[in-house]
């Protein structure tokens, strides 16, 4: 299962493209590290892959269907600001991932099936949040909030998680913990596209690496074949 971007171009303002003819695959079961300087278009790339932005040309397809940002339960998006609801508890945030499977009535009255609640509790347990299920998200540390975002993606049943600057706001030890978690989840068939500035994370946590420069893919290869020097040379 993969998200395929083909010849995708996008500009926020006419005549000033952020991305030009970008083609890239984001596969389930592997970690793609997306690198580039600030303003290179990394966030735009993820938003296009999530269907939150529409390309001006080219296509974004998941399993043969155009990605449109709605009801695409196989794709989860974790924005730079993590995107969890601070005034909800950890369990409630995780359960938001199950909303897509509910009827409109159940969504509004908040009637989640037992199976979804148990899935959410399991996800929290798996991610080390078992003791925090009833704690409000605003009381958590940065690393715990990242875990909540992953828990929601697991409850959603996402096959691909698009994570923008996933660890940039965490201290080095916590960011290593979170990235190790993503590596473990890869074995469950979940794929990640993670944007970062940190070249040194690529060999340890990435299966593939893509570098964006001047709105184009300057490098795209297996992480095991890409040295830090090579990545830096096109950065």
């Amino acid at each position: 299962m993969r998200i395929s971007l083909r010849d995708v171009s996008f500009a926020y303002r006419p005549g000033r493209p952020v991305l030009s003819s970008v083609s890239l695959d984001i596969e389930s079961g592997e970690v793609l590290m997306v690198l580039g300087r600030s303003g290179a278009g990394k966030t735009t790339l993820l938003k296009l892959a999530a269907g939150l932005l529409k390309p001006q040309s080219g296509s974004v397809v998941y399993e043969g269907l155009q990605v449109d940002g709605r009801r695409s339960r196989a794709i989860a998006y974790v924005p730079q600001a993590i995107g969890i609801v601070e005034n909800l508890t950890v369990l409630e945030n995780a359960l938001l991932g199950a909303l897509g499977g509910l009827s409109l009535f159940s969504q509004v009255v908040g009637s989640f099936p037992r199976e979804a609640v148990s899935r959410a509790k399991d996800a929290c347990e798996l991610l080390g949040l078992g003791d925090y299920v009833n704690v409000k998200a605003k009381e958590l540390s940065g690393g715990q909030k990242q875990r909540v975002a992953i828990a929601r993606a697991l409850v959603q049943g996402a096959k691909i998680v698009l994570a923008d600057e996933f660890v940039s706001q965490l201290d080095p030890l916590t960011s290593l913990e979170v990235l190790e978690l993503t590596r473990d989840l890869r074995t469950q068939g979940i794929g990640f596209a993670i944007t970062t500035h940190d070249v040194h994370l690529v060999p340890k946590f990435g299966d593939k690496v893509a570098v964006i420069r001047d709105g184009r893919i300057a490098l795209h290869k297996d992480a095991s074949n890409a040295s830090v020097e090579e990545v830096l040379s096109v950065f």
Partner: protein
Amino acid sequence: MRALRWAGPNANLLILLGVALVLLWHFGAFSPRTISKLPNLCVFLANAFPPDPEPIPVLLGSMLETVLIALAGTTLAVLVSVPLASLSSRSLFTAPVTSFFRFLLSVIRTIPAILWALLFVITVGFGPLAGVLGTAVYSIGYLGKLLYEAFDAVDRDVLDSVRISGAGKLALMRYVVIPESANYIISQAIFMFEYNVRASTILGLVGAGGIGFYILSYVQVLDYRSLTTALLVVLAFVVAIDVASSRLRSKFLPS
């Protein structure tokens, strides 16, 4: 030039004072007719003190009714303004929908609370129900605007990340927009209640219940001592509610 710069804030104050005096003159504040009536103020004050303690029990009961009118009106307004504000929020709905509901809220705000109360006196008759409905409708206009601005400010990234998990607009409202704005909603509802207590004191003037009815009666029969008592009762309640409200609101607003 140097003199003007030296004058600084004093010059602004002088200009402001000048404008005020010109306006007062325009409205006849310095006409011989007005000045000749100034002693009436002294007569009024002489007749208004000391306050008459006799109507205090009745006034306390009617002031309590005023507070209950404000409470019921505000509660009703919160219940209606949250969905209306959601329909007016650009975070959730497209421009044609939000424009229609923003216009509706604007129309509601244009009509003052006392006029709404008068309309409901005509519709449902004299009494506190007209006051409750008048207060509620007016507050919907105001709360609706305050809330849709808060809803617009909800982090788009949070909305996007929940939307992509399959949440519809109503679910986004229930699980993202309202929880993220909860403190602001509570704070504004308390402020609206505080405002409505003050506004509801005059609703009795049009027969919509509360202490306003007594205030109007005392003015009409020239019972200024009872009028002073009524005004002191209003003052005591309003000050107490203002203090309680600001303490309560500070718990829900970021420090």
